[in-house]
């Protein structure tokens, strides 16, 4: 039996998770707690304030996780934290706590790639065998498939993440950021009906979103005289999600996959799941998605990925526990899979 603590703070959420793998490799979530830093409507979260929020939350959050799991620090076999990618200051908070706990109680450390955390948690929760993974969040947009011990990136955003486009659009129309701008866009879109044409920018296996955002920044005010906020939210979702469906289908065709797994915060969106589901069904395949406790950044996914790494013999020496804003998904050797 092995127990891992996972710490995640790459953006505006800070999460602590505790995962146990028994001798047969059966995984159990012992705790998964999280706090979100929400800013007023029309604003986004800035690195310094976000890091400060995380510094204030992290210790009570770790204590809470241990309480929920009914464990103490000495019961932990490994401490896992997000090494990257993400925002430097916020990431650093998890790293400092991880190192301190490790040194106080002589527990090994594992630095985890955030994207791989999402993938491994998605695989564990849904049981998907070998899916094409669509990883969509505020910070990342990638189409991934596993091949030869790497999570290969088949397609990605050429500029900003899709979630970033959505979040910044929410600011333009002054939607609340509570619980998240994306959630509020989704609810708003349900009441929209008039479709307005927006730029559609798929480039082969890749996508571009900053042009769509610039277009919205320039034309939203004039569009709002003819269309409602609800219509704009509806149109943007239909447009963006169709782009995601196209590139995912292209990847499926390329690798001959019959499964699609959606991970990342934008993966919570039920309209995206619906549109993707229609495409996957047409191809005779199966769509896997998770609920918001695992879609949205969380600590348990870091514990899960970290535990897989640890069990395959990998630990991170202290001098390598620095954090990095850029960390490519395909740069990690996936030693725990065939």
């Amino acid at each position, binding site marked *: 039996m092995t127990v891992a603590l996972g710490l995640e703070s790459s953006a505006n959420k800070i999460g602590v998770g505790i995962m146990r793998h028994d001798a047969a490799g059966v995984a159990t979530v012992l705790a998964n707690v999280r706090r979100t830093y929400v800013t007023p409507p029309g604003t986004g979260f800035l690195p310094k304030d976000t890091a400060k929020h995380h510094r204030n939350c992290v210790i009570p959050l770790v204590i809470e996780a241990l309480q929920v799991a009914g464990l103490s620090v000495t019961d932990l076999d490994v401490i896992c934290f997000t090494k990257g990618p993400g925002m430097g200051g916020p990431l650093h*908070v998890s790293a400092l706590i991880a190192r301190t706990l490790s*040194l106080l109680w002589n527990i090994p450390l594992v630095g985890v790639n955030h994207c791989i955390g999402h993938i491994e948690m998605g695989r564990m929760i849904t049981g998907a065998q070998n899916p094409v993974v669509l990883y969509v969040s505020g910070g990342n947009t990638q189409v991934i498939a596993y091949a030869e011990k790497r999570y290969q990136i088949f397609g990605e955003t050429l500029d900003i993440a899709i979630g970033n486009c959505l979040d910044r659009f929410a600011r333009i129309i002054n939607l609340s950021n509570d619980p998240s701008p994306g959630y509020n866009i989704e609810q708003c879109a349900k009441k929209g009906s008039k479709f307005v044409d927006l730029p559609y920018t798929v480039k082969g296996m890749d996508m571009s979103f900053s042009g769509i955002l610039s277009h919205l920044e320039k034309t939203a005010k004039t569009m709002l005289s003819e269309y409602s906020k609800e219509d704009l939210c509806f149109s943007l979702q239909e447009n963006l999600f169709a782009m995601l469906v196209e590139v995912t289908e292209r990847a499926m065709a390329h690798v001959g996959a019959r499964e699609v797994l959606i991970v990342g915060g934008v993966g919570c969106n039920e309209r995206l799941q619906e549109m993707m589901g229609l495409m996957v069904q047409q191809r005779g395949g199966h769509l896997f998605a998770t609920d918001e406790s695992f879609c949205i950044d969380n600590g348990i996914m870091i514990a899960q990925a970290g535990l897989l790494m640890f069990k395959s013999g990998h630990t991170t020496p202290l001098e390598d526990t620095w954090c990095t804003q850029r960390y490519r998904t395909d740069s990690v050797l996936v030693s725990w899979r065939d």
Partner: protein
Amino acid sequence: MPASIRIEIPFDSQRHAAVAASTLSADKNPKYTTMTFSNESDSNVLLVCIESRDAKLLRTAVTSIMESVQLVSDAIDAFK
């Protein structure tokens, strides 16, 4: 480098000061700044030495590191 500072922070014990020093040493240096963390053996004092290209960078580094020292100190207290 022209701007430098030496900060001594007492901890409860030599062991705790050593934990703090090791934790803080693992980060890469910011631009145009070098930071070293140590505690002399048998000393419960964490020694932080920072050298920067200019006073403004030094001030930024000091603010940032003191936030980190505070967090590490709180964590040691909470989980010792």
